[in-house]
């Protein structure tokens, strides 16, 4: 199961409700890491995309790293 469950799902919903982009970045990255660790690359890139978008919106420096991971997986262009 690679969808966010239990505590992570609750934390994501709360971060969305509070429009807390910083937490959304870290929580979606956590979801992506879990999915990739479980071998579900598609799901991982889905969550990684969300982490990247919220990092872009808030000008967080890790946006570049997140984008690089997506590019490395063939999910985006340079």
């Amino acid at each position: 199961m690679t969808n966010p469950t239990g505590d992570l799902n609750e934390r994501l919903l709360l971060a969305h409700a509070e429009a807390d982009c910083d937490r959304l970045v870290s929580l979606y990255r956590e979801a992506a890491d879990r999915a990739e660790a479980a071998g579900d690359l598609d799901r991982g890139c889905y969550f990684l995309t969300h982490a990247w978008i919220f990092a872009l919106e808030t000008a967080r420096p890790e946006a570049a790293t997140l984008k690089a991971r997506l590019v490395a997986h063939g999910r985006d262009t340079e």
Partner: protein
Amino acid sequence: MATETLRAVLQPIEHAHGLPNDHYTSDETFAAERDPLWFATWAGICVASDMPETGDARPLDFLGVPLFVMRGRDGAIRVFQNVCRHRGMILVTEPRKIEGAIRCPYHSWCYSHEGRLVATPHVGGPGHNAHPDIRRDELGLIEVRSHVWMGVVFINLSGNAPDFADHHADLIARWAEFDVPLYHGGKDSTFQLDCRTNWKLAVENYCESYHLPWVHPGLNSYSRLEDHHHIEEPGKFSGQGTEVYRQIKGDDGVTFPDFPGLSAKWDAAGEYITVTPNVMFGVQRDHVFAIILEPRGPRRTIEHIHLFYAAPDTSVSLRARNTAQWKVVFEEDIGVVEGMQIARGAPGFDGGRFSPAMDGPTHLFHRWVAHRMIGDAMAAE
């Protein structure tokens, strides 16, 4: 018929009539004015100080066209159509600071401060953020030509007007001494007036000094009619000037600092000119004001008033006094511009006549409107 009535406006002032009623009352004529008077010219939309910091963005409705204005990381002000290139969603719905990308709230396509499309999440399917048929370099935000002058953000929506600096070269040269940093006085130096009138009546009234002794008796106590002169540049701008500008003083006798380097001409001079279509400027030795007219249909206009100074740290109490003084003056004008609007409901009103001695600047504005409405060729016939 419409062209004939506009030809009457183009006659020499001794014989000319003013614009016909429909230019003040008709929704159809209001819509017809949009392209020639607003979109094809340089219109003022806000002041640059509305976006003081990097990432400050502000949405605007420009005669039905959704725009947003933003200060980028390079400090430049840019104006964009407020429309995502994906499904046409509005991007910015309230004034706010955008730290990073401009993210569409619908499907999260993201744009840089310069308008480049930088992210298209899931565009190739879940977790696939690119698609060969969606070329990001072709799908940036649509930028509107803009130019900041005297603290005001001007736009040319059609994109084909002459450059602002060329189009207004004469006025820029005339006021070259005011090409210095202008500091907006802040919240105490801006206010709005909601007027039940057509925007053109506000311009017409602003252009002439004829009404001053009757409508502004307080001003006339020291600023007599004979102390004013016309400013007339056909096809470019018009307004009035005074020779007896007197600085406002605080209870302690303090005045605002002068703009640096002004020539002696400005010791007691003030000039009040409309940059067509909709920005009415006033310049004096110690402060400048801009009135940006925002039409809300043929019968309603919001006046956005902003005052600028020569220094960033002027007296708070003196600024408040100055704002209050101008507010009284501009509110005194509301009665006449709303009264003229009501009068435009009279069938058969022929646009009225102009005093050849006193109404020259107002007639020039009417001519500018009529000329742009019927075009160069027909105006020349």
